[in-house]
């Protein structure tokens, strides 16, 4: 019997690419702005999924890598006139190196202690950079408008940032898929289910966890570099915003942790819902309340998230939706 594997990843990438091309085709700038944010959130949620969904470690302060990548790249662009693409990579690598350094000790902690430690690290980083003068301290840094001249003006720079964000999101999703299908991914999931048993069957949990953590730090750092390049201004409160960190966790849970498609569905749905709530005058003030209510309903009744629920309800879909 020949087993045909559904071409899940190519299909998913094509769908995302088509969505990404939409605002360019119809030349709609506000749609492009919305999608820029959505692809950023897909990146954040999908990379959190690698450490949280697959490995079972709830990284509450994951936004710290978004901020660090943003700051490093911004610093390089502003002080050394580095090209954005170079700066983004050169910013993401030290951010991941930091993930390696902090990952080794904090991944020894389990459960709630790990979650608390990641909050502590994000807050420590935010308050430290608040005082760090080379990075502009509490005021942050901002571009002179002429920086964008290299890229053919602010309009083209925004276009470039959009393209890069889409590529980063697609790369994150691809990585997430490859990890899930790999032996490495299996060892992560074994750690999630029972770390001690995983160790008995020959997995080195310490090593696997750190590798997963470093991978999951790289993409948010790239996303941060891109976001703040387009933004033209970076400050500690925005770069290390714990709320955004928790929101990406929420997106993950909403769509379904541990699945490839879950964080994407979650990010799209959450962002659409927020847009809807903010623009509806009667609900604008209750935006947070409704977001909380939605989260509670998902956590209490749809524990597996939307994608997980679909997979459980219709097992035939398991071959098609990862």
């Amino acid at each position, binding site marked *: 019997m020949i087993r045909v594997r559904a071409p899940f990843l190519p299909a998913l990438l094509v769908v995302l690419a088509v969505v990404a091309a939409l605002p360019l085709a119809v030349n709609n700038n506000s749609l492009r702005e919305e999608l820029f944010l959505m692809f950023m959130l897909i990146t954040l949620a999908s990379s959190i999924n690698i450490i949280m969904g697959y490995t079972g470690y709830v990284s509450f302060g994951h936004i710290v890598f978004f901020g660090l990548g943003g700051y490093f790249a911004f610093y390089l662009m502003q002080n050394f006139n580095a090209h954005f693409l170079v700066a983004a990579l050169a910013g993401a690598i030290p951010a991941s190196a930091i993930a390696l350094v902090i990952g080794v000790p904090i991944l020894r902690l389990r459960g709630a202690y790990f979650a*608390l430690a990641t909050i502590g690290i994000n807050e420590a980083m935010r308050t430290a950079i608040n005082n760090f003068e080379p990075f502009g301290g509490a005021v942050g840094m901002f571009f002179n408008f002429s920086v964008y001249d290299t890229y053919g003006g602010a309009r083209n720079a925004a276009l470039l940032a959009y393209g890069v964000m889409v590529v980063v999101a697609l790369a994150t999703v691809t990585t997430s898929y490859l990890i899930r299908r790999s032996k490495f991914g299996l060892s992560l999931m074994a750690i999630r289910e029972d770390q001690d048993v995983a160790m008995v069957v020959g997995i080195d949990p310490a090593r696997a966890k750190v590798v997963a953590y470093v991978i999951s730090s790289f993409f948010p750092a790239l996303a941060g570099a891109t976001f703040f390049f387009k933004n033209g201004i970076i400050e500690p409160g925005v770069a290390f915003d714990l709320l955004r960190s928790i929101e990406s966790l929420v997106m993950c849970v909403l769509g379904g942790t541990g699945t490839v498609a879950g964080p994407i569905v979650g990010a799209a749905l959450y962002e659409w819902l927020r847009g809807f709530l903010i623009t509806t005058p009667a609900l604008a003030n209750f935006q947070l309340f409704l977001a909380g209510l939605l989260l*509670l309903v998902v956590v209490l009744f749809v524990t597996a998230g939307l994608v997980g629920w679909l997979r459980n309800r219709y097992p035939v879909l398991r071959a098609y939706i990862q």
Partner: protein
Amino acid sequence: MSVDALVPSAIDGLMLGFVYGLAAMGLTLIFGVMRVINLSHGPVIALGMFVVYVLFTGAGVNPYLGLIAAAGLGILFGVAIYFVAVDRIINAPELTTLLATYSVNLMIVGVATSVFTTTPRAVDISLGSVGGSGVTILGTHAVAVAIAIAGAALLYAILFRTRIGKSIRAVANNRAAAELMGIDSRRVLALSFGIGTSLAMTSGALLSTLFSFTPLSGATYEVKSFVIVVLGGLGNPTGALVGGIVLGLLEGVSTVFIPVSWVPVLEYVIFIAILLVRPTGLLGARA
């Protein structure tokens, strides 16, 4: 850096420490009894502030009477939070309870910001001051310390001198065994959540007499509570009180030596260091 400033700063910090400690006792009690990290802790502290504020500005109720109202409402509110958000998932992994309590956080903040906006508020109360030779103690601070100590004492009386306290300790120690002894663990868990919430709201009520606040102010104190709870050992109320005093002292004294803006950095670094080196806390609570 002057040594003259050291004593008043230390006293100031020490006094605040008691109030921080009271809030942290609520957080640690909930964790100790049901292994839930209550992420709605901060907004609940802010609610305590607003109970006092509304009663004070709306009906002219004395803030310290408002505080009793806040404590009472805290129990009811905590029990309500428990049954709505926590009861169903009490045995689920950490992420689930973290997110459930966080959703309560969002709801409270959402309602509070739309009702009260984010304009800073203050409860205007002055009880004079006692002072001399460079050390001045504000009346409100002294009363806050007295009430915080009374609150802590009351918690101990409940935990160690009453039957219900005994069941709370039994459930914290081993829920299954407690149920075999005929304890209705669900009621005990709900009540513990109520007491924890009440402590947080009482602490918020005290803070409202000291500083100005907004519906978002709770977040600052929530993070402080985390630091304190880790200092004293998760789940250990005595540790939380001691941790609160340590943190308060640290905040007070360190401002003499380093710029104020570096103080939070120091706090978080200590927080992470303790988690890594001694996750059971300085007092070495039960693991």
